């Protein structure tokens, strides 16, 4: 199988890119690092009529990591390697660096981008769960230069489907900054082979007060369903609780209930996915909790 013929565009600016998107409509596809789209095209599963290549847009307009008072801002064309190695991300949103580190292999991480990955919205994609867990926001721009902000909860709609409109381009992902103490997060992943997709990816974010009592505990899972599974009960149930091993076991039970109709494929059955969702949710919670309790250390 080879690619179907397509027209190729290499816009130099964001506005040129969104104009092209508008002009060509549903047959057009943006390409960033190409690590998801190109395999699909090679398999004949995607056959865009126009390819709009974002890699020629001035580098620092879509590939950056910045900080302001409240947020960490990551340009959509930032590569997984850059996410993995950025000191700001490591300091202010460790879970994202940790996630990037688990993606595929070095070659893929050097080319693939965070924006490309989230817009592809593969249910087993690694960023989905952690971005929902840290309350990320997605900023998109349209041809009228109107900027729209979408919460991570709303962004991932279904398998390979996001809330982006046809003529919108994702420009930035924003993550609220958290105090550097008494916050912990973790992403743990169960994959069927080294470098493979997640059977289950579990992201946990935990905040504790100075007495070690839980202010916030959130678990989000990817790989188990067509979109990230946000385990709301955990957020509600554990506020004001002491998160001991008994509570974590309880969290496992809540996760089991929350996973409806899990995905099934040749690598893992639905039952196994549900069971692993529980196991990895608990592992993520334990790790996040341990990190939140390491006072003074930069472990959120």
């Amino acid at each position, binding site marked *: *199988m*080879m690619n*179907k*013929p397509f027209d190729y565009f290499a816009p130099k600016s964001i506005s040129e890119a969104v104009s092209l998107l508008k002009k060509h409509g549903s047959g057009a596809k943006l390409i960033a690092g190409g690590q998801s789209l190109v*395999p699909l095209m090679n*398999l004949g599963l995607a056959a865009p009529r126009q390819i709009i290549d974002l890699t020629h847009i001035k580098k620092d307009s879509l590939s950056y990591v910045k900080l302001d008072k409240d947020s960490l801002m990551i340009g959509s064309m930032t590569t997984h390697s850059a996410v993995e190695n950025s000191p700001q991300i490591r300091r202010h949103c460790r879970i994202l660096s940790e996630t990037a580190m688990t993606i595929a292999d070095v070659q893929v991480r050097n080319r693939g981008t965070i924006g490309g990955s989230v817009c592809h919205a593969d249910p087993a994609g690694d960023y989905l769960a952690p971005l929902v867990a840290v309350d990320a926001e997605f900023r998109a721009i349209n041809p009228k230069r109107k900027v729209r902000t979408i919460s991570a909860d709303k962004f991932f709609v279904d398998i390979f489907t996001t809330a982006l409109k046809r003529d919108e381009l994702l420009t930035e992902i924003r993550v609220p900054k958290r105090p550097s103490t008494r916050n912990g997060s973790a992403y743990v992943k*169960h994959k*069927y*082979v*080294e*470098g*493979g*997709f997640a*059977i289950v990816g579990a992201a946990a974010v935990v905040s504790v007060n100075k007495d070690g009592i839980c202010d916030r505990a959130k678990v989000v899972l990817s790989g188990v369903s067509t979109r990230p599974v946000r385990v709301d009960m955990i957020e509600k149930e554990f506020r004001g609780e002491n998160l001991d091993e008994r509570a974590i076991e309880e969290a496992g039970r809540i996760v089991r209930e929350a996973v409806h109709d899990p995905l099934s494929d*040749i*690598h*893992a*059955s639905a039952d*196994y996915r549900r*069971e*692993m969702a529980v*196991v990895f949710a608990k592992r993520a919670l334990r790790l996040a909790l341990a990190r939140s309790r390491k006072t003074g250390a930069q472990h959120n």
Partner: protein
Amino acid sequence: MSAVQVAVTRKQLVGTSQKRMEDPKFVSGSGRYIDDIKLPGMLYAAFVRSPHAHARVLKIDASKALKQPGVKAVLTNDELKGIKNMPTVEDEPETVATPRPVLASKEVNYAGEAVALLLAESKYAAEDALELVEVEYEPLDPVHDLEAAMKAESAKVHDYAPSNLSYHFVYENGDVEGAFRQADEVVKVDLVNQRIHPLPLEPRGVIASYDSGNDLLTIWLSTQDPHGMRNSIADVLNVPAAKVRLIAPDVGGGFGCKGSMYPEDVAVSYASMHVGRPVKWVESRRENLLTTIHGRGQKQHAELAVRRDGRILGLKIKIVSDAGAYTTGLNVEIPKLTYKMGTGVYDIGAYMAEIFSIFTNEVPQEAYRGAGRPEAAYLIERSMNIVARKLRLDPVKIRQVNFIAKDKFPFRTPSGYTYDSGDYHGNLQKALEVSSYERLKAEQREARELGRLVGIGLVTWVEVCGFAPGFGQTAAITVTKTGDVIITAGGHPHGQGHATPLAQIVADELGVDLSKITVVHGDTSMLPWSSVTAGSRSAPLTGSAVLLSARKVRDKMSKIAAHKLGLKDAKLAFEGGKIFPNGDGGKGLTFEKVADLAYDGEKIPPGMEPTLFEYTAFSPANYTFPFGTHIAMVEVEKETGVVKILKYFATDDCGKLINPMVVEGQVHGGVVQGIGQAMIEEIVYDDNGQLLTSTLADYVIPSAESLVEIVWNRTETPTYANPLGVKGIGEAGTIAATPVIVNAVEDALSPYDVTVERMPLRSDYVRSLIKGSG
């Protein structure tokens, strides 16, 4: 320095590790594979393939495709004039022949089967036009499940066959019934050896170029068997073999799947003759997974008549092999090899085997590294473990009780092989020492006390290789007038590293430096004949043909040198690039000088032919039977079922060694492939016969990240079957690693008292065993 010391320090290359001569080429990307070759005026072929596993082909309409720019022709089977069918077996009571046209014309029998060939000016034009070839199919019921296929009410793959039975065979030796009557216990074992893919890094590829002036067809093919493929392709094309030259350039892995001829090889060759231009086709990875042969694919059943002390009195096995869509010589032969090696390293007097080979609407199964012997080792070595567990015997003990004793070699097995040589007790002992087996067991006990599921697996393997008496291999040696040495090797390499060991043999015989030696291969115009590189044949057969050719060259050069030096019947030494009488301290003549003399009819002994070229077709006295012991330690994570390999020890005996580093490399690669089958590899079809594992994201193979250090050691028990005393090592790792990992995992799970019935050991499956729902 005394004379004795001089003799001892003589540089002997055979037996020493030498870096592979071809590696700089490969690691620097300078290899030349099929896809690197471009000929002027070359057209590109693409194949229209069946989307159905089983269907009637009603109509093929290429008119739209032919209107596309760049498209030159579309050939269906009707347009392949005057050619024969693909080879199958003779129709006999035991086997069903399957007449198969090169391109499917009436019926397709697996998803991906080629129905038409399209030729275009570029690869893109060819691929783009493919979907414009309209093929009308009438879908038929696909046959997928082996057990269901054997039932009378099953749909049939071939209407003309009485059933889905491709091949049936029963064999009995010794008093089987008596053995089972005497047994204290009968242990029954059911195993699945799943279908997997050989998966060479370089997929298949072929270029054909027809020269009408000379009526000569030159074919470049990614193959393990240049002469064999020349003969087969010429036969199907109905042209004399003399009118076909076949060249195998660098071949990026074969593992058995490139030892067969495929429809594409014939169709592309025909196309070049048809249009009078060179034609190229290179398989995509999807086509590779979909249409290149698969391997293993057996359901295995064993019954063992066992005495309380662990002695096996009798063995009955039943193999249900998945032939795929067609009967071929190999898919009959491979399960037969499983039966022939079914008793392994054990002295089992009473043996019975029954083989059913079953048609399915899937790709035909043929040879994958080990071809029949990994399946045999899996069956007997898993069985031994299961028996040991039942009798509460250590896996070491049960093997020691049943081994063929050292003094019984040559040993005639019940299936009719004569094992050449062996010292199974000695090899096992060494393996126990180098792995510190007792310490491993102590570590395991400690781990278990902490609740960890740690297991130890042990396998004592044997295989048959060095095929075969009567099926030889060739080599020739040329010494040029300038004294350069050219080895023309019959066995073609596809990654094994033939060149260096062959050069080592010659360097020792002729006393020249390795840098003076060039190794060439893979062109039917170079040698009168050669045979396939498979079955760990190259060291025993090609190596011996090279050795014997070198000895002939040496003999002739000795005579020329003696003639020049005016010596009679002198025994000449070949060392350090010189040829000299023993004891003259290395004066004599230079190697180059003698080579130069050989080309001058005036300067050689009267009656001798000038030039230096010697050829040998070597046929061995027997097969060879290398053996060994592999030991692995694994840990299963209870919560997830994830298997982690902690330690791996391979202690192999392949007789004498030519280049230990090359041998160790072969073991490493083989072990990795064997682990792949045990842990993650599996070809999966759905019930409609659609391949679900058609990409490398779904057909997963091991990577360095998931592996462990392989600690390799050896014992050396020479064979009499060839003058080098070598046995071959190409398949050993693949044979041993699969059962050793499964044995280890079963041992790790012993607190749950479960039997591992199938592979791969995906965490999902292992977890289900722990939960008792497996």
